[in-house]
């Protein structure tokens, strides 16, 4: 199973200030342990929302809003994608992150197999519904 550990933003990550040498080393050690244990598949840190943008969808309309965004705690400052045998294992990995404050959210990543897109009959049904103009209510 793959999990995403989502690091939430705070005033610090949003300020754009670079992390201290100490914090940087601590995070480096944490990442190194994940690598050594063979479970880190990917991970990135994000620039503050002031350099980002949002696209909102409403029917055919798209509204683009530039950052920064104010609801700091709902923002994402970075993420790890790890392999774990169970949710508890993913939680235990997250627990070890060297944070003194803040929040990490643990979420399981969908397997492609959970979406059944290639099934011949599902595809046929989709085509049929499109051709006959029926909505997908079933």
């Amino acid at each position, binding site marked *: 199973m793959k999990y995403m550990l989502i690091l939430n933003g705070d005033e610090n990550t949003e300020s754009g200030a670079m992390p201290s040498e100490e914090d940087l080393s601590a995070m480096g050690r944490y990442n190194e342990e994940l690598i*050594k*244990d063979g*479970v880190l*598949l*990917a991970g990135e840190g994000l620039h503050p929302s002031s350099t980002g943008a949002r696209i909102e969808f409403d029917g055919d309309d798209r509204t683009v809003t530039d950052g920064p965004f104010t609801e700091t705690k709902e923002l994402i400052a970075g993420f790890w994608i790890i392999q774990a045998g169970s949710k*508890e*294992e993913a939680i*235990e*990995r997250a627990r070890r992150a060297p944070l003194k404050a803040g929040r990490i959210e643990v979420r399981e990543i969908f397997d492609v197999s959970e979406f059944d897109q290639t*099934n011949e009959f599902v595809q046929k049904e989709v085509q049929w519904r499109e051709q006959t103009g029926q909505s997908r209510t079933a």
Partner: protein
Amino acid sequence: MAGADRPVAHGVSDREPTEAGSAGSAGSAETHRAIEAVWRIESARIIAGMARMVGDISLAEEFAQDALVAALEQWPRTGIPRNTGAWLTAAAKRRAIDHWRRQERLGVKYQEIAHRLHTDGPTGQPEAAVDEPIDDDLLRLIFVSCHPVLSRQARVSLTLRLLGGLTTDEIARAFLVPSSTIGQRIVRAKKTLSAANVPFEVPGRDEFAGRLDSVLEVIYLVFNEGYAATAGDDWMRPELCQEAMRLGRVLAGLVPKQAEVHGLVALMELQASRIHARTSSSGEPILLLDQDRSRWDQLLIRRGLAALDRAESLGGATGAYALQAAIAACHARASSPDQTDWERIVALYDALTQLHPSPVVELNRAVAVSMAYGPAAGLELVDELAEGGQLVEYHLLPSVRADLLQKLGRAGEARTEFERAASMAHNERERALLRERAAAVELL
């Protein structure tokens, strides 16, 4: 604590919470699952560290298990400590010291070990014990678990138990055998290692390459067992792929200059990237060239390609795993079957057959040749193989032959070959698929 019987794990939830607000039995069950997770993460390091101190992996595992039992007993009351690895290591050491004290009168040697346990980082300050030597200890544990004195099956079971932190039950479920079979296998393996006086060491230069081959073989066996899992199987089976990949990555970190380790990691990541595309939702196998490439896992492909780069930059392009990974990479890089660099695949198969001559690899090469140079060229090779007589019972030979005949417009022969392939197939699904193909030929 000395000499205490092992508490039964599920007895823990009967304990009264000692603090107001402590969770009841539901909370305890949660704590248990959390402790199991900690065990999965920490057990290999603890066992490896203990094995270096006591020089015996059976005892090392026993002390580590004792530490786990102590955690199951105490953590639901006290909460999970901040540094779980250090806590468990300290607990395992205390068990070991108790054990050797009881054995003390039996000989000086034991006193020495007890002394080593005392001086190897004070047990009250266990952080010291989880430092530098752990990486080496882990590597030693890998080499000992995959020691050639053990049968392949024993190596696989022992590796999953000691390095994967899997329980006997989990291993048994993954391999579809009774739990007692795995239990006996592990007990016998430990006895064999002990009888052969296998030292807890990384092999020296003269035998390093051969011993590393054994480790890689074990990891790839675990991977393939998981890869062979089908839709209705226990979830532990596909889990084997994950564990094999994890072990491969751990090993790549421990011996980063060994090209073939990166080659194996690349091969596993690239093969795993196709796991979800290789069967339909009804469980029928989908051949590589018919797979929906949008379902290939791009993250694993990227990781696989990066690992292959490392293998090649270390001069390992001609290793058996790296060659197979390079073939898988040709497919991974292509957006469709006809975008595939088939000529390169043929060249890679050439190198692979020189390294490990095998009729199955020759057959795969024939398929690549047919894609690169046309079905007639492929058929010529397949016919040579058929005449060689080494694959008489292998249903994929007539199946490939039928496919090529069909492409060449020789419908009658193609149908006969598909039917022959169907009669030789091992499982019902493949047989049905081949019969369908035979029937489809007639429609042309």
